[in-house]
Each structure stands twice: as structure tokens, then as C-alpha cells.
């Protein structure tokens, strides 16, 4: 009965932080119903136990009035001296049966509920975290699905156990009543059938309303999460009241939906009450009449009525099951919207991957993405390569392309001589580390954050030094053991950025891609970081790519690629430029337009983001100093 005895879902190897979680089983990937039953199937042992035990509990409960009736007629109205003792022990045995059945049944049911919920929660989590990506829902939205909806799917496990038990009780009670009187048994059967039909009609309305209820409640939770995460921004403009009013609106909408769902629910209950009342009346009337006219005995009558009263509960359970099922399916559907999300990229299949070696050459050639074509550059081993992008929104895409967070419409992206699409994602990302521009820290200490991906203590130290994070450790009260808060918010902006950089450098990846890594630090610190970064990375023969416009960083780069707009042209279909491209001849074959520093004169075209309209990028390359000297567009972009 303890947690340790529970069949846990397979747990990913946590020894390495990089170990990917296991995918969910095939079951339940296709429809909400399949997902629901697939989740329940995993808990079938507990479900069977709970159903059986609940049934025997219910049977035990139903025997109580029968035994009381029997005791009255056999031991009280007549019978021998010891009859009462005998009947009391039978009653005691029944109590032991019903009590223990309930105890272990409820526990098995809770296990089934919690574990089903847990399994579904882990399916959602696994899908969200899966390397192939594709998840676009807001964190708060994902949260409600992984918490409330998973919980509701789990709760249905309890309903299943109860319903199975209720059906068993109904069957036995019907059989018993049939034994007393065919008429009484028939009344139960008919009553149950009618009740089910009528309640199913009413349940339809409830289904609709409870779907809406979950949707609205989810929206309110999403808003709350979003407001709390953006709290600093809100407070800065004193929009707390506006935000609170927004939340109030969402909460009131959720309240309205809940009240509507509750009114359907009430109707359902009222129908149940009416039916069971009528049914009791009929049984009492028919039974009383049968007894009074001498067709059945007193004991039988008492027992029959006791049974009839008793099956009211199971009847309600059975009739309520369809509403519970509807609710669970609605939640399973919301879960499936996450677990069934299409993957952003297909995982590369070719096993093996990369040759050993410290660095890896990166080559991007003629790539088309986001309405730009001709994205081309090369990063060599042991060098720091700078990429300066003068095209709106494109800079953030470049790191993504290298680790296949997104796929280019056309062109070639290679790492270590292999097309990135062919290598399994895990291996690719183990090779190429992108530190996102807005990288967040994790709860824990400074030291833990820096060492998160470091292969050894020396690497952590090197990362700390390169990012000038040693100064952070010296400044912050508590030093390396200071905690950074939930996402790093107890550090200053520049401190946070340096710790994130230290974490990335400490990982010592063969290819490190940094996007604007020093926007929150002052020029003097930036300069120091640039020098140290170069020293650490180049010395080890590793490849480093900096997507940035910082002169301090670019001046330390061995080579700088300047990507800027040349001309917009119409493309018949993505990746197949026509007319305008003719002017740039080679670009039409997807080859890069590549010039050495000296003759550039980019015409800074605006980013036409329409699919059919592409902006052809020109790549100029050289050293920072050379480009500053010879390239007017570059000079203009980087002069402060």
C-alpha cells in the first residue's frame, strides 16, 4: 500500500541531465477516448481490485437490511434461544466483510485515480519537453492540462470502479428481488433502464456546459500565471488594478460557466430524485399489497424494501457515470491537444553521428527562412565566428536552424560535414549548444546553475572565468552558494546574463552558438568577457558562433559574416526564386551570394514576410576591422 509498492511509469535515467524522457505508449495517441482508456488500462490491476472490493462492500451493505429482516423474523419474532447469537455473528461477519472491502477498495481506487492522473501528467510533460518541439501553448495553459485535466482523467478511474460495483449490486439486488417476487424484480429493471435513458438526455446538456466550464476555468488560470510572471512589468506601469480587473473578468466568465454547468447538474440530480422516489413508491405499494394479500411474507417484504431503498444509491451512480465519462473525455481531449501536437521537426534517423574531435565545422549555405533567402556563412574549428544580421527578426532564427528548432524552407545546414537533418536530434544538440538570448536560470545556487552542464569542475571554473561570472560570485552576498530565485530574478540583469553565459561555456560544447550574449552588461565588462571567451574557446580548438552586433565581441572574432538585404523578389514557390533573382544569377540555384569584404553596398530592404516575396541576402565577410573600414553598410550599422 505504500508508494514504493506502486507500479511507477518508466523513469528516465536521471544520472545525466541530458537523458531524454521516455515517450508515452502507443495507446491513446489517436482519440480522446483511446487516450482515456489507454491511461486506465495501465492501472487495470488496481481498477479490478477496486471494482471487486467496492462490489463486495456494496453487497455487504445491501446484506445489512436483509440480515436485519432475517434476524427480526428468525430470532426475534420466533426462533430458539441461541438464534439471536447466531444471527448477530452473521451480521458481524457481514460488517467485517463490508468494512475491509471498503478500506482496501478505496485505497485501490485512490491508487488507480492518482496513478492514472500521474501517467497522463507525465505524458503531457514528456510531449512538451520532447526534443522535436512543436508545442506553442502558453505555460499556464499547459499547466491546466497537466494538472486539472490529468486529474480529471484520473478521477474517472474512481468512477469506473464505483460504476462496476454499482452494476454488480444492481444485478444481485435484482436477482434477489426476483427471488421474492418477479414483479418487484421487474420494477427494478424497468426503473433502472428508464432512469438511464432519461438521465442520458439531460446529461447531454451537462456535457456541453462542463466542456465550457473547463475551458473558461483554464483561461482564468492562464491569465493568473501570465500576470504573475509579468509582475515586474505590470508594477512598473502601475497596471496592477487593470490586471486585477482583467482577471476579475476572466474569473466571472469562469463563474458563469460553472453556474451553468451546475444548473445542468442540478437538473440531473432532480431527475434522479424524482425517479428514485417514484420507484420506491412503486416498490412499497406493490410489495405492501403483495404482503397484505398474503402472497409474500413479512420478512421478505422488509428485506425487499430494504433492498429497494438500498439500490437507489447504485442507480444514481450508474446514471451519473455517463456525465462523468463526458467530463473525462472532454479533459482527455484537452490532453490530446498537447500529446498529439505535430512535431516541429522530424528526428534524424541516421545512427552514428559525428566523428570524434574537439570542434566541428559549421556551414550554412543558401538557406531560405522567414522570407529571406541566401543565408550563408561558415564557422571553422578553433575560431570565433561573428554573424551580423541586418534583417528584422532573422537573427533569432539562425541559432534555431543550427539545432533544428525549426526547419529552413530551403538550403543546406551542415555540422561537421553532416547535414543536420540526418543526425538524431539528441546527438546534434549534444554537439551544438545554443544559449538562447533570454535564457533563464533554474532554482538553485549560482554554483549549481553554472555547473549544470559542465563535464567537470575545471570546465565549470573556466566557464565562470570566461563569462566574468567570478565577479558575480564575489559581489553577491552568499557568493557561489547564493540562491538565484525561481528564474534568476534575484540577480541583476547583467549578473543573470553572465551566469547563463558561464553555464553555456562550462558545458564545453564542440559548437557553441551565442545570440546577443552581453546586451545587459556594461562596455568594460563586455570587453573583458569578449577577451576571455576568445581565450577559452579558441585555445581548446572549439567552434564558436556569435550572432551579435556588439563591436566588442565582433572585434575578437576571427571572421565576421555580414548578412544584409540586397533585393526583394517574387518567388513562384518558396525556395525557387525567379525573375529578380536573375540579377544575382547564382542565387537562383540556392548557392550563396558571397562577396569578400570591400564592395558591399546593401540597400537595406525591409523584411517582406510574405511567403511569395523573398528578400535576397548578401553575405559580406572579413574581419571586424576590415568590414568597418571597407563596408559602408556595416560601418553604419555598428557605429554607436
Amino acid at each position, binding site marked *: 500500500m505504500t508508494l514504493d509498492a506502486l507500479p511507477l511509469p518508466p523513469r528516465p535515467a536521471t544520472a545525466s541531465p541530458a537523458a531524454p524522457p521516455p515517450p508515452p505508449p502507443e495507446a491513446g495517441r489517436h482519440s480522446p477516448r483511446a487516450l482515456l482508456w489507454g491511461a486506465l488500462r495501465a492501472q487495470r490491476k488496481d481498477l479490478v481490485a477496486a471494482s471487486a472490493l467496492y462490489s463486495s462492500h456494496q453487497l455487504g451493505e445491501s446484506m445489512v437490511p436483509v440480515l436485519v429482516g432475517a434476524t427480526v423474523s428468525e430470532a426475534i419474532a420466533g426462533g430458539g434461544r441461541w438464534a439471536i447469537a447466531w444471527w448477530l455473528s452473521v451480521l458481524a461477519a457481514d460488517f467485517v466483510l463490508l468494512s475491509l472491502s471498503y478500506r482496501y477498495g478505496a485505497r485501490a481506487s485512490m491508487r488507480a485515480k492518482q496513478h492514472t492522473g500521474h501517467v497522463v501528467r507525465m505524458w503531457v510533460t514528456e510531449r512538451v519537453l520532447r526534443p522535436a518541439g512543436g508545442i506553442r501553448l502558453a505555460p499556464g495553459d499547459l499547466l491546466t492540462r497537466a494538472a486539472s485535466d490529468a486529474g480529471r482523467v484520473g478521477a474517472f478511474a474512481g468512477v469506473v470502479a464505483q460504476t462496476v460495483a454499482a452494476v454488480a449490486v444492481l444485478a444481485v439486488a435484482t436477482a434477489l428481488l426476483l427471488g421474492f417476487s418477479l414483479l418487484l424484480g421487474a420494477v427494478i429493471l424497468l426503473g433502472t433502464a428508464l432512469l438511464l435513458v432519461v438521465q442520458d438526455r439531460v446529461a447531454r446538456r451537462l456535457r456541453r456546459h462542463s466542456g465550457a466550464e473547463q475551458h473558461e476555468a483554464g483561461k482564468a488560470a492562464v491569465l493568473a500565471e501570465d500576470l504573475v510572471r509579468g509582475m515586474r*512589468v505590470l508594477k512598473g506601469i502601475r497596471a496592477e488594478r487593470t*490586471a486585477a480587473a482583467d482577471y476579475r473578468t476572466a474569473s466571472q466568465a469562469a463563474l458563469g460557466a460553472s453556474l451553468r454547468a451546475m444548473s445542468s447538474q442540478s437538473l440531473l440530480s432532480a431527475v434522479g430524485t424524482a425517479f428514485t422516489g417514484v420507484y420506491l413508491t412503486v416498490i412499497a405499494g406493490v410489495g405492501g399489497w403483495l404482503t*397484505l394479500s398474503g402472497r409474500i411474507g413479512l420478512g421478505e417484504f422488509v428485506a425487499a424494501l430494504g433492498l429497494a431503498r438500498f439500490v437507489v444509491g447504485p442507480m444514481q451512480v450508474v446514471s451519473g457515470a455517463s456525465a462523468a465519462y463526458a467530463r473525462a473525455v472532454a479533459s482527455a481531449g484537452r490532453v490530446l491537444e498537447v500529446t498529439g501536437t505535430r512535431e516541429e521537426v522530424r528526428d534524424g534517423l541516421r545512427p552514428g553521428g559525428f566523428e570524434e574531435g574537439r570542434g566541428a565545422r559549421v556551414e550554412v549555405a543558401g538557406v531560405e527562412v522567414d522570407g529571406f533567402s541566401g543565408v550563408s556563412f561558415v564557422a571553422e574549428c578553433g575560431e570565433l565566428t561573428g554573424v551580423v544580421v541586418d534583417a528584422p527578426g532573422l537573427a533569432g532564427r539562425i541559432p534555431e536552424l543550427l539545432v533544428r528548432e525549426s526547419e529552413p524552407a530551403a538550403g543546406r545546414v551542415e555540422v561537421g560535414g553532416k547535414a543536420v537533418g540526418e543526425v538524431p536530434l539528441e546527438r546534434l544538440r549534444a554537439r551544438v549548444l545554443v544559449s538562447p538570448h533570454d535564457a533563464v536560470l533554474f532554482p538553485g545556487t549560482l554554483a549549481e546553475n553554472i555547473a549544470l552542464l559542465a563535464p567537470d569542475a575545471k570546465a565549470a571554473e573556466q566557464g565562470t572565468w570566461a563569462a566574468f561570472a567570478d565577479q558575480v560570485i564575489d559581489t553577491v552576498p552568499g557568493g557561489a552558494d547564493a540562491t538565484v530565485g525561481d528564474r534568476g530574478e534575484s540577480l541583476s540583469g547583467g549578473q543573470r546574463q553572465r551566469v547563463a553565459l558561464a553555464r553555456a561555456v562550462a558545458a564545453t560544447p564542440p559548437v557553441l552558438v551565442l545570440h546577443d550574449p552581453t546586451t545587459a552588461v556594461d562596455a568594460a565588462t563586455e570587453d573583458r568577457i569578449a577577451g576571455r571567451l576568445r581565450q577559452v574557446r579558441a585555445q581548446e580548438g572549439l567552434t564558436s558562433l556569435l550572432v551579435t552586433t556588439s563591436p566588442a565581441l565582433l572585434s575578437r572574432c576571427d571572421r565576421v559574416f555580414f548578412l544584409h538585404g540586397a533585393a526583394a523578389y517574387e518567388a513562384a514557390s518558396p525556395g525557387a526564386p525567379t525573375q529578380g533573382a536573375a540579377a544575382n544569377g547564382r542565387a537562383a540555384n540556392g548557392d550563396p551570394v558571397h562577396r569578400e569584404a570591400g564592395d558591399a553596398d546593401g540597400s537595406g530592404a525591409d523584411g517582406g514576410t510574405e511567403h511569395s516575396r523573398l528578400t535576397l541576402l548578401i553575405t559580406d565577410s572579413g574581419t571586424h576591422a576590415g568590414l568597418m573600414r571597407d563596408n559602408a553598410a556595416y560601418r553604419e550599422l555598428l557605429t554607436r
Partner: protein
Amino acid sequence: MNPTESAAASPATRRLLPVADGRRTRAHLRTALRPRRLLLAATTAVMVAESALGLVGPIAIGWVTQAIVDGRGTSAVIGPVALLAAAAVLGAPATWASNVLLARVVLPEVARLREDVVGSALALPVDTVEAGGSGDLVSRVSGDVERVTEAAQGGLAGFVSAALAILATLVGLASLDWRFALAGLLAVPLQAYTLRWYLRASRPVYAAGRTAEGHRTSALLGAFAALPTVRALRLGGRQYARVQDASLAAAGYEFEATRTATRFFGRLNVAEFVGLGAILLVASVLVRSGSASVGAATTAALFFVGLFDPINAVLGAFDSVQQAAAGLARLIGVLDATPASAPVPAPAGSPEAAPRTARQPVLALDRADFGYGDGPDVVHDVSLRIAAGQHVAVVGTTGSGKSTVATLLAGLRAPRRGTATLDGVPLADVSPAALHGTVALVTQETHLFAGSVAANIRLARPEATDAQVAAALDAVGATGWVEALPDGVDTLIGAGGHHLAPGRAQHLALARLFLLDPDVVVLDEATAEGGSDSARLLDTAATTVLRGRGALLVAHRLSQTAGADTILVMEEGRVTERGSHQSLRAAGGTYASLWEAWSRPG
């Protein structure tokens, strides 16, 4: 699993938001329910009627039984059947009404509570909320609210049927032979003892369970809200394991609670058997001695069996109350954490849009010291003054305390020593409403709220028209790219929406500021994220926003601050240099070397 063990697994470093104690929770409930007194009374009345109709069953059955024992004719069945039929007919509307009324008492109250909690949390100092992590608060307004709703509905209904069951027991006992009643009463001390034991045993389990669910929410949000970083750094496995641990720990408390509850019901079964057995024994003696009828014995025994459910419902209601109390304490704890000076905001249709005259307030820090939490001071003895339309810049190395000074001046944090004043009045004494539109801070952290571009801008002034929003975008030069978005200003951005580069988020923040039109602006690295995309655009936008206003500028890009009237240089929390760009460069100090590093062509 031992609950205390897994509690130890939770992040020990967290300072979660407070949890109210039982007394506070009850006091709050009393006040909150006062305006709903009438509705509550009506609900209770209907519930009493509903439960009373439920008692008709055993009475009618006893009546039939007696008729049978007395050997009367078949027509004797008519009376009891008519009674049962009447109960059925009346029972349906009673059930409907009691459910609907109950929902109308509980749901709006819980909704109001969660709104108040969010309102209060937003009024709390940022540091307090951040210390607990956003997961703590979010789990309170979602998971706890769900639990409270369920338990309150179940608990209230249970309590009413409880009260009635007790009443019926008394009445029933009186109508019975007193000797049967006495026998049945044997169960009561057992039940009382069991209940007392249970309340003690389950309270800590439920409280810990709620906290564990809060940790689970934090773990889930930690994975989901940091998704880009998690994926980039291949931390999926680690986050998965965290969620798994937290989820199993929360489930552990549910198992623990169920174990306790099933023991509770097991003991109640014993009490039932003792009562029932005693009645039957007494009946056998009395019937034999001829001092009681078989009918009376049957009625007494069935009456007692019929009481099992209501009594269990009564006692089970304590379980619901226990669960609701655990959730409520966490909600009310947030309300209580709100400082008295920051009242829960009223639903503001349109905040006081008093016509603003061209005011030029003076914002000043005087010898201010500040430190976070109970840590050492990180800002020492800082004085500065922003008078009519003046621009003051703060520069310095990273971590020197610039952002902290910015928040002190904007009134978001209060200095430990020294003062922060607006026209001589301490900022702490100025109401939030009065500060709205007077001083505004654009923080170093950017956040786009999930919603349309227009909604993000409108946060500053909810009453702004579409034209005003468009004008703000136009003024800061953002119209071009906003219109190029898939749905223009109606494009959904923020979490789950269209992705915008950080520079664009900053651009929108400036547009928001323009719409807000405050007297004094504090820009903390508000143009730092320009990067490759929009440095120029942001610079122009900032110039527009600053025109004609007092301002405090914090920037590493020194070209942004060179034009300021006064430049302060901060080092390790102190202002070490002060003067104009020219004079500071000439002085050859820290500023001169910073400027040197900045303007070197690379």
C-alpha cells in the same frame, strides 16, 4: 511514504506566501459570508426540506410494516404509498433548488475569493511574490480553488444533512421505545471519539498535501515556462524527473489521506455494528418478554440502519471541511499578506481619469539605503533629484545597483533608510492610484502578456480608444512592423502567440509608456535589446517618449545617456561620480574609462 520526508524534498530555499491559521480562516469566512446570510439561510431551509423528504421513506415503510403485522387489509397500503409519492414529487424540485442555491452561495464566493487573492498578490511587493515562485501563487488560485469549491459544496450539503440527521435521530428516538434508543446511543461515544481522532490525524496531511500540490505546480511551470532554455540545454530529462518526483510526492499525500480516511470509516463501521447489535439484542429480550412489538423492533433496527448513511455523511462532511480549510488557509494567507496601505483593488471600470494638467512633479531620493530581504545593503546613501523635465542618467558596471535605484525612485521598493519622495511626500504614502500616470518604470525585464498587441498597449490605460492605441504605436514608430504582423494590432502575442524578438517587446513597452503619458519616466535598459534588429528604432522611440518629461535613464549603451542633464556613476551601490557628460569625461574617472570602453571602435 512519510509526509514529512517528502516535504523535505521540496525546495527548502523557498519562502512561500503565508498560510492563514484556523482562527483567521474562520474569521474571514464569517465576514465573507455575512452578505450572503439570506441566501445561505434559504439554501439551508431547502436542504432541510430535502433531507426531511428523504426521511419519509423509513417512516412510510415502518407504517406499512405495522399494517402488515397488524394484519390489516390491502387498502392499508394506500396511506404510506401516498406519502411516498408526495415525497417523490416534492423531492425533485427540492433537490434541484438545493443544488442550484448551494452553487449560488459557494461558487460566487469562491470566485470572489480567487479574484481577491490575485488582486492582493498583485498589490504585494514583487519580492514577496517572487520569493515563493509564481507556481505557489498559481497553484493557490487554480488547484486550491478547485478543491475548496468541491469540498465546500460537499461539506455544506453534508453539514445540513448532518444537522438534520441528528435532529431526526432525536425525534426518531423519542418516537421509538426509549430502550431501543438507549441501545442505539451506544454508538455515539465511539463515533465522537473516532471523529476527534480523525480530525487530528488528517489536518496535517491535508495541509501538507496542498503544499505538495503547490510544489508540483512549480515543477510543471518550471519546465513549461522555461521551455526554450530547457530544450536548448537538453534539460528535458532533468525537468521530467522533477515533475515526476513532485507529482508522485503530491500523490503520496493523497494516498496518506485516503489511508487515514479509510481507517476513520472502518472505525465508524465498528460503531454502527455496536449500535445495531445492541438494538437487536434489546429487541430480542423485549419481544420475548412481550414488552415490545415486532413492528417496533423492526422500525427501530431499520431506522438505525437508515441512519448509517446520513451519519456517515455528517462525519464525512468534516472530511470535506478539513480539505476546504487546507485550501482556504492558503488563499486567505495571501489576503492577509497584503499590507494595509495597499488595499485590494476595486474592480476599476475606468480608473480615475482625472484630466491631467501639465504637472512637473519633483521626484527625489535622499540618502537612500536599500537591501533585499534580510541581506546586506546593496544601495548606500544614494541621493538624486529629478525636477521639471530634467533627465538624470545612472551608469555603472553590472550589479552596481542601478536597477535597484530605479525601483526605489519609482516607489516599487521602499528604502531601508533615507527617503523617496514625490513633491516632498514619501512615495509610500502616495496611493497607487495617484502614482498611476505620475511615475512609470519600464523594467529591464520584458514581458509580453498573452493577448493582442493592442491589449498589451492598453494595459497602461484600459479606457484608451483604438485610435489612441494606434497613435501611440505611430508615435514610437512601431506601426510599420506591427501592421506587417499576421493580424496587425490584433495579432496575438506573448506566451502561446506570435513570437516577437526582445527588441520588439521593448518597442511595445515604449508605446505603452507613450499611451500612459506619465509625468516622470524611469527607463531601465529600455533600449538594450535593440540588437541587430531595431537599435535605431528603439533609440528614436525612447527620444520621443522622453520629450517634455522628467526622466531617470539607466543604460549601458552610453550614447543613450550622454545627453542627460546629470549623469551619476554607480559603483558597488554608491554614487561615485556626478556631473555632465563633458565634465565627467574631463575628470578622467570611472565614467571616462567606461566611455572609453564604450566608444572604442572595436
